[in-house]
């Protein structure tokens, strides 16, 4: 996504500038948390484990951008957000910002359950950076937005959690800051609330407000963000288009050595079959590496070794690729035009194109044993694999096409 411009073509001004940010958490192996311990062991050196939460992170966000920060758990994204929000102090580097910032690390965090929603709205407004007068002026709008007019004088402790979330969200929306920092707010609340969040984000986006969103939900990143940044182990791994960021995020999740070896090598599905035994069933990527998770659109190579458990007369091997929902996505078969004696082995290998949309799939095998091609009653589950990627999860496969839609010129 190109950098947003304001009319003339010159890029919008930078509103968040982060330079060479470092943050180290020193985690003591043995915590001294009382003066007594400090006094009784004044000379004891406490050994610390250094946890580098952020390393040399630099980036810029421009006015009106919807900027995503993605990364796995522990990648440092929450730390970064807390530094931007002045909750943590950076060890090195600078953060500069233009305009008023409203952080939403968690909905309703400053609520006081003993106060009425009226008082809480003002208190939270000031916490969001409004002046008291301004917060009081907007109080009614907030309460109307939250649809809580009848309950203004009720103490917050008597509110249902749904009412509380509505109020918190209304405050966040009405704070009307120049820059919003949002951390996984969408994760709370029901579907209707999530929808309301999305509506507000779309509306803010149209209004040209700058929003920084930390999330795990790549669909949100792709549908809302102009640009996104991927953090991993405290380092900036990628900054750019949301598609690419999401794809790299998926790779970090599914294409690591650990993720690719979810099932110990050599362990085979425990499906008994009267006709054959599975000696080997391996999925490989184009580079020949055994994998468990496949990136979308990447051809997959199968490598299967079967051993006949009884004499097979010109056996037919029928393969099904089955989706998690049980739909047979594709089928193909191979026939050996010769008898196979007990103990003889059949190797099945080759490469299959992969138009599957992200999700979980299985490779099943049916073995036909005689001239009538009667197949076995039970399919042998050879493999299961996960297709990951940023493609929409509609349908089952993505079909390549050159379909265009255009406005027809009148009179032609």
């Amino acid at each position: 996504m190109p950098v947003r411009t304001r009319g003339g073509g010159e890029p919008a001004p930078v509103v968040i500038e982060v330079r060479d940010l470092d943050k180290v958490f020193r985690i003591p192996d043995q915590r001294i948390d009382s003066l007594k311990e400090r006094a009784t062991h004044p000379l004891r050196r406490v050994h610390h484990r250094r946890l580098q939460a952020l390393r040399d992170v630099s980036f810029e966000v421009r006015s009106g951008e919807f900027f995503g920060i993605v990364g796995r758990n522990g990648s440092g994204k929450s730390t970064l957000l807390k530094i931007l929000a002045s909750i943590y102090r950076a060890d090195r580097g600078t953060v500069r910002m233009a305009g008023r910032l409203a952080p939403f690390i968690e909905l309703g965090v400053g609520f006081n359950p003993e106060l009425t929603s009226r008082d809480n709205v003002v208190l939270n407004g000031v916490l969001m950076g409004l002046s008291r007068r301004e917060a009081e002026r907007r109080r009614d709008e907030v309460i109307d937005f939250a649809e809580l007019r009848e309950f203004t004088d009720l103490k917050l402790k008597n509110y249902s959690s749904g009412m509380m979330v509505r109020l918190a969200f209304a405050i966040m929306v009405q704070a009307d800051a120049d820059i919003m920092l949002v951390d996984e707010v969408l994760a709370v609340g029901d579907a209707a609330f999530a929808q309301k969040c999305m509506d507000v984000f779309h509306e803010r986006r149209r209004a040209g407000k700058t929003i920084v969103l930390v999330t795990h939900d790549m669909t949100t990143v792709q549908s809302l963000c102009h640009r996104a940044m991927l953090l991993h182990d405290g380092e900036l791994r990628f900054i750019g288009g949301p598609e690419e960021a999401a794809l790299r995020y998926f790779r970090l999740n599914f294409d690591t050595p650990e993720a690719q070896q979810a099932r110990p090598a050599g362990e085979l599905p425990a499906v008994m079959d009267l006709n054959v035994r599975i000696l080997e069933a391996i999925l490989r990527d184009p580079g020949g590496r055994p994998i468990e998770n496949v990136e979308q659109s990447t051809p997959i190579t199968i490598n299967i070794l079967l051993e006949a458990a009884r004499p097979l007369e010109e056996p037919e091997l029928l393969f099904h690729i089955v989706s998690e929902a049980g739909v047979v996505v594709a089928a193909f078969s191979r026939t050996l035009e010769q008898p196979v004696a007990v103990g003889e082995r059949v190797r099945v290998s080759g490469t299959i194109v992969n138009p599957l949309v992200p999700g979980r799939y299985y490779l099943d095998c049916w073995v036909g044993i005689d001239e009538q091609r009667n197949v076995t009653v039970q399919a042998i589950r050879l493999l299961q694999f996960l297709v990951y990627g940023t493609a929409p999860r509609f349908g089952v496969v993505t079909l390549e096409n050159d379909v265009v839609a255009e406005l027809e010129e009148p009179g032609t």
Partner: protein
Amino acid sequence: MTTEPAGELRPVPGPSALGGGWRRSLELLYLIAVADFKKSYFGTVLGYLWSLARPLMVFGILLVVFTHVFHLAGHVQHYPVFLLFDIVLFGFFQEATGIAVGSILGHEAVVRKTQFPRAVIPLSVVVTSAFNLGLNLLVAFVFVLAYGISPAWSWLLLILVLLALFAITSAVSMIVAALHPRFRDVGIIWTVTSLALFYGTPVLYPIYAPSSSTLRDVIALNPLAPIFDLAQRWVTNPSSPWPWAARMGGPVRFGIAIALFGAICALSLWIFNREAPRIAEEL
């Protein structure tokens, strides 16, 4: 699309004692103190009576003990009034610092999830207690008048005493609150310390009362001592000497007490500014 008021890039200073500026801190301080005050008084019908009951009970017990057991009342003019006044004043110090110790831990969510100005947390406790003090003082003055002491212009000087008491209470509250997240036993230590201070401050007795002059000289170093000396002189007993008089420990000890007072205030600012940026990480 609206025009984007981007403005100038300004450095983000990170968390601090008064993050977000003076104005915002003061507004939050006011809102929170008022909220806490309302919470304790408007929630229950007997709210205020309950909070008044405590100092009155303490007063009643101590009055009996010190007039009938220790016969102190004979040596001090208007002893009951003197005692009530001191208990109200010291009660403020004790209540505020005692609640302030755990205040940051109690507001953990706010500290960890928002750029809340850290100093506002203990200070709001002090301000809430100050509201209590104001109400209690009204009751104390009614008592003073009922006792037969006629109003004097010097009563107005009590404002100075209150300001000094407010300053040192704030300073101590900030120190204990800032240290508590790192050293969790500060709470226990402070409970004992504040009890020791209750007896080590001329609250129950005027400073010239101890028969041992060594004891008096030690007590005279207590930065709280001049505050209580002056309260006595200006409200209950105009004939009691100035805090720097020889009977009260002399000018040198008075000077040391004042210097300690200043040092504690300075220390509180230093400690709080030092701890504020990392309090969120200590929790």
